[in-house]
């Protein structure tokens, strides 16, 4: 089943196939630290959510805890799902591949049905499900990495023809995302396509061919939605339109700039008094930077990086190709989305709306990411068991 050219293979193979001295072969388990880090990140997010949202919540809903309550419920569900999934055999997860893909496509299609899809800020990204709302794209990201892992494990990705099916799934998702439109998740999806196909053994030259449609797509996308160009320009010089396109970024800068080294102190953010848009979700990292300073912001980034590191270590420790690719894909979702969020907040890339995993407000997002981590924990458990068998 192992194919040449896989980076995962060479690492895992080196570890699992070579007879190593017992003391060197002892694999550290990353499950526990990962679990602790994710819980810590989520709890810190819950606390920061309160600080960032109580004023707006009080104003909009007459309840300072409006967002916190919802997020706390989601957190409880997320922890339960995470622990539950960590106990589920990986083959069950594998069986979810087709249903998850179908559900993703259906839900993403439903977004376009006026009665169910919610249009906000000019885009249809949300689905109303009676008592709660969700973004189907949250599920789609994980559905995609799962399907790639299954496919690569079964058929390999060593020829160009073989990479076409997963590429088609990714392209289909991207088209649906662009129709919403949702540029940020499209970017993440593109990143996932690249990372997972490469990890799955696809050759570098194939990606050169993939670059062609992307290069063509950029001007076309800008032509379809001129606001994208404005956003690009606003990112270069936000001060040119402080009340318009540059507003979000400037407000984020104000928050971060006020934070300095050590921040203005917990609960003391001034930008959350409705100056900073989406302070509870997409821009919660700005509030963290404002209240905890550079030190706090970098600490949060370090914690996220540790989660990513643990995820990749679990992936490389796995002797099972499917498990390794799945762990790699899930971790990449976390890594790419975290990176995109902090890059937007700090003005490294043009503004686009994407929540910070585990920290931002958003129940469906939290539960989905926790599910991913639950699968990672399950893989870690398998790795440990495999080691004992060895």
């Amino acid at each position: 089943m192992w194919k040449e050219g896989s980076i995962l293979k060479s690492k895992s193979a080196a570890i699992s196939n070579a007879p190593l001295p017992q003391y060197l072969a002892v694999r550290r388990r990353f499950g526990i630290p990962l679990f602790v880090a994710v819980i810590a990140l989520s709890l810190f997010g819950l606390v920061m959510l309160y600080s960032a949202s109580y004023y707006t919540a009080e104003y909009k809903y007459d309840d300072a805890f409006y967002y916190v309550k919802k997020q706390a419920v989601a957190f409880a569900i997320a922890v339960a799902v995470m622990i539950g999934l960590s106990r589920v055999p990986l083959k069950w997860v594998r069986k979810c591949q087709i249903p998850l893909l179908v559900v993703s496509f259906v839900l993403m299609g439903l977004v376009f049905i006026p009665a169910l899809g919610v249009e906000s800020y000019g885009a249809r990204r949300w689905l109303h499900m009676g008592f709660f709302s969700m973004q189907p794209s949250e599920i789609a990201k994980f559905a995609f990495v799962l399907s790639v892992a299954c496919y690569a494990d079964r058929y390999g990705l060593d020829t160009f023809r073989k990479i076409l099916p997963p590429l088609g799934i990714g392209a289909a998702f991207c088209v649906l995302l662009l129709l919403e439109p949702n540029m940020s998740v499209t970017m993440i999806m593109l990143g996932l396509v690249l990372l997972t196909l490469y990890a799955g053994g696809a050759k570098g030259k194939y990606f050169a061919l993939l670059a062609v449609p992307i290069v063509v797509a950029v001007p076309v996308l800008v032509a379809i939605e001129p606001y994208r160009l404005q956003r690009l320009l606003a990112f270069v010089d936000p001060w040119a339109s402080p009340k318009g396109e540059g507003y979000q970024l400037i407000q984020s800068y104000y928050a971060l700039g006020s934070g300095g080294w050590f921040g203005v102190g917990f609960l003391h953010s001034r930008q959350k008094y409705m100056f900073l848009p989406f302070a509870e979700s997409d821009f919660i990292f700005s509030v963290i930077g404002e209240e905890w300073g550079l030190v706090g912001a970098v600490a949060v980034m370090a914690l996220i990086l540790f989660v990513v590191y643990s995820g990749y270590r679990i992936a490389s420790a796995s002797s099972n190709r499917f498990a390794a690719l799945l762990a790699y894909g899930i971790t990449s979702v976390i890594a790419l989305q975290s990176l995109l969020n902090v890059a937007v907040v700090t003005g490294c890339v043009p503004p686009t709306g994407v929540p910070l995993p585990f920290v931002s407000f958003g129940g469906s997002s939290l539960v989905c990411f926790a599910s991913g981590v639950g699968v990672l924990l399950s893989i870690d458990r398998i790795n440990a068991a495999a080691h004992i068998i060895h």
Partner: protein
Amino acid sequence: MLAIAFFFCIVAGKLFYVQIIDGRSLQAKALDQWTRDVPLVATRGGIYDRNGLLLAGTDTAYTLYVRPVEVQDAPHLARVIADALYLEYDSVLSKVARTGVSEVTVAKKLPKEQVLALMQAAPKGVYFSRDISRYYPYGNFMSQLLGFTDADTKGQTGLELYYDDYLRGLNGYQLTEADIRGNSLSDAIRYVPAVEGMDIVLTADKSIQFFAESAVDSAYRKYGAKSASCLVLDDTGGIVAMAEAPSFDLNNVPRDDLDALFAMCKMSAVSNVYEMGSTFKIITMAAAVNEGVADLDDTFYCAGSKEVDGQRIKCWKTKGHGSQTFAEAVQNSCNCAFMELALRVGTAKMYEYFRLFGLTQKTGVDLSGEASGLLLPEDAVKPVDLARIGFGQAIAVTPLELARAVTACVNGGLLYTPRVLERVQADGKLVYQSVPQAKQVLKPSTSALVRQLLLGVVNNGSGRLAGVAGYEIGGKTGTAQKYKNGAIDRGKYLSSFIGFLSAGSRQYVALLYVDEPQGLYYGSQVAAPYVGEIFANVAAYLDVPQANVEELPTFVMPDCLGKTYGEVQALCRKHGIYLEAGGEGSRVVYQFPVAGSECTSKCVLFVDMG
């Protein structure tokens, strides 16, 4: 993993840049949006007359308005407002319950107490704003001198403009932290109180201004003049009154016609130059006396004209004044005599006096828009020009320059810098006291003699109508023909009188001039009586002791029409009245006072020969 870590490091680097390097300037910008500053408007200082009477004040009133969308119980709120402000319930309700508007003004110009009482009940949706307005207790009064402000009570003209920096004060502010909608998050974090404007006290006297106002107003109306103006100075150069007609109400500035308003705002005494005519003779007189080229023993002969450098210059009385003493020549306002005086002094000396008297430059008065005298260049002055200058032609000065110089002629020879500001006070405490600045320009003996000559003009000469029985009043009349494009503008005159009143140790100099009077135009008739009226009022107002007045015998004015000049002259000599005649004919065609009027020896008879 390495790639991800690498990108995280880039983000961390950007974070460092934004948070640490750019932090301070970003925070400064952010501070601006986090706070809302409410201006605390400084109250504009008052303008007071020399006795502390308010001439311009600041009124604070409140406007109450309602935001109907925020009102929960309109009938109840209407009842509360109507009761608190003594308004009609129905009209308040119609405003409070109005829909489709964001704000409705309920009542304006409310006193503070009423608003405070209402706001104590803190009804929702009710707001008030503080309005500051300038008001002038006397309305159409001293309008040019005081000036007015714009809607933001910033000085636009007159003293309001000139002393705006003192009067305005410094606005303070109250800094409050606010959310994006401007809602306060806390009590004021910074409170910078306003520095109230300072009060200015003028040298002007409200009562004397009032006398001057009524004088120019009646002169303006009676003679259908283009304008009538009056300037009163005290003997140290303080402006006591400055009145102009036509004028306007400072409380209701007519801003519709800005050109007309601009013209009415002008202080002609400061901004305009006039060929004053005979009133200017005082300067010639003073120069001649001070130079010792004329004294009371001199006699002058007037044949009706004088030949200078081969050019014949007429006296105003073409028949001539004959032989006259210096005093008589002054009383007669004889042009020939003053040509002679000017020629005796000479161009160089005359110009030295003009400079000494400050006619060649601005006086330095604390008012804006000041002009300075227009004189021929000294080296271009020929004897013909000097002769004309001697009786007030070919030289134009501002009324203020003339009045200031004449003050020096009668106060012992001290030339003061005119001023209108007496002192500045803040909160009742003295901040600035103006000190009269003077220099000696004439010998005291010269001043005494000029005084005596001017007293003679009022007692026995053309200035009789300015006289008030029992008071020491001197002066000089002036009737100047106006010129247009270098030629006489027929029928257009500037009639003036400048006089002084002794009030104990103090003296007041009044210059009243009527621009383009219709009908009568002699200064002795058009201007002098009004100065007399002003001085009579001033003397009574200042309680100047009145000398014993003998009852003057009266007589009935006979009909002079058709009589010859000699017959009329004989009549005047008989009754001891002063005769002023115009026209070139041999018979009287017009007389004033008319036949049958009851007259005293203080009367002046005007006749036109046709």
